[in-house]
C-alpha cells in the first residue's frame, strides 16, 4: 500500500482560525515532501515543499513541519479563509524509485 497517508479525511475549521492538516509517512529514507491544494474541478496546485534536512519551512500563511523521528508531516494554514476550502494532499518522493507518491487527501471545510 501507499506509504503516505492522512490522519483525517475531513477537517472543519472556523474562518479566521488556524488549520492543521497532518500526514504520516512510512519510509524513513524519503527526503522530499510536498503539499498540494486541489480546488473543485481543478488540478492539484503546489503549495510548499520541504526537504529532510529541514524541520520547518514557511510560506505565505502556510508552514510545513517535518518530524523525522515519528515520520510525520503537517501543514499549518494561518487565519484560514474561505478560499482555503479545498482538498489538501501530502506527497512523498519515494526513495527506491524516485517517484512521487500522493496521499489520498484531506478535505478542508471553512465554517463561517
Amino acid at each position, binding site marked *: 500500500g501507499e506509504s503516505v497517508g492522512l490522519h483525517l479525511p475531513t477537517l472543519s475549521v472556523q474562518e479566521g482560525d488556524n488549520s492543521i492538516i497532518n500526514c504520516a509517512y512510512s519510509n524513513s529514507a524519503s527526503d522530499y515532501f*510536498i503539499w498540494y491544494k486541489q480546488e473543485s474541478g481543478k488540478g*492539484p496546485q503546489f503549495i510548499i*515543499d520541504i526537504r529532510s534536512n529541514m524541520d520547518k519551512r514557511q510560506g505565505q500563511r502556510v508552514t510545513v513541519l517535518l518530524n523525522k523521528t515519528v515520520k510525520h508531516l503537517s501543514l499549518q494554514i494561518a487565519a484560514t479563509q474561505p478560499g482555503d476550502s479545498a482538498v489538501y494532499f501530502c506527497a512523498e*518522493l519515494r526513495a527506491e524509485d*524516485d517517484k*512521487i507518491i*500522493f496521499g*489520498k*487527501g484531506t478535505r478542508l471545510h471553512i465554517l463561517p
Partner: protein
Amino acid sequence: DAGITQSPRHKVTETGTPVTLRCHQTENHRYMYWYRQDPGHGLRLIHYSYGVKDTDKGEVSDGYSVSRSKTEDFLLTLESATSSQTSVYFCAIGQENYGYTFGSGTRLTVV
C-alpha cells in the same frame, strides 16, 4: 495551470472504443507525467516521460499507452476503453525533487 493544457476537458465514450487524451506544455520541460485520480485512491501514476520517445510505465499502466514525439506533447491512449477507466486524468510536468505542475484535468466517462 499556466503552461499546461489538457484536451479535451470532458469526454464521454463507449466501452471498447479507443480514446486519446492530449497534454500540451509550453515550458519546454523534459519530464511529463500522466495520473488518474479516483475516489479512495488519490493520484496514481499511469505513465511518464523523461524526454522525446523516452517513456516508461507507472503503477497503473495496464490498458494505457503513451507517446511523446515532441517535447511539448504527451499523449495518453486508451486502446479499448473500459468502464474501470472512467476517471479524471491529470497531466503534470516537473522534476521529482522539485514538485510538479498539474494541468486542469480531463474527466473521462466510459459508458
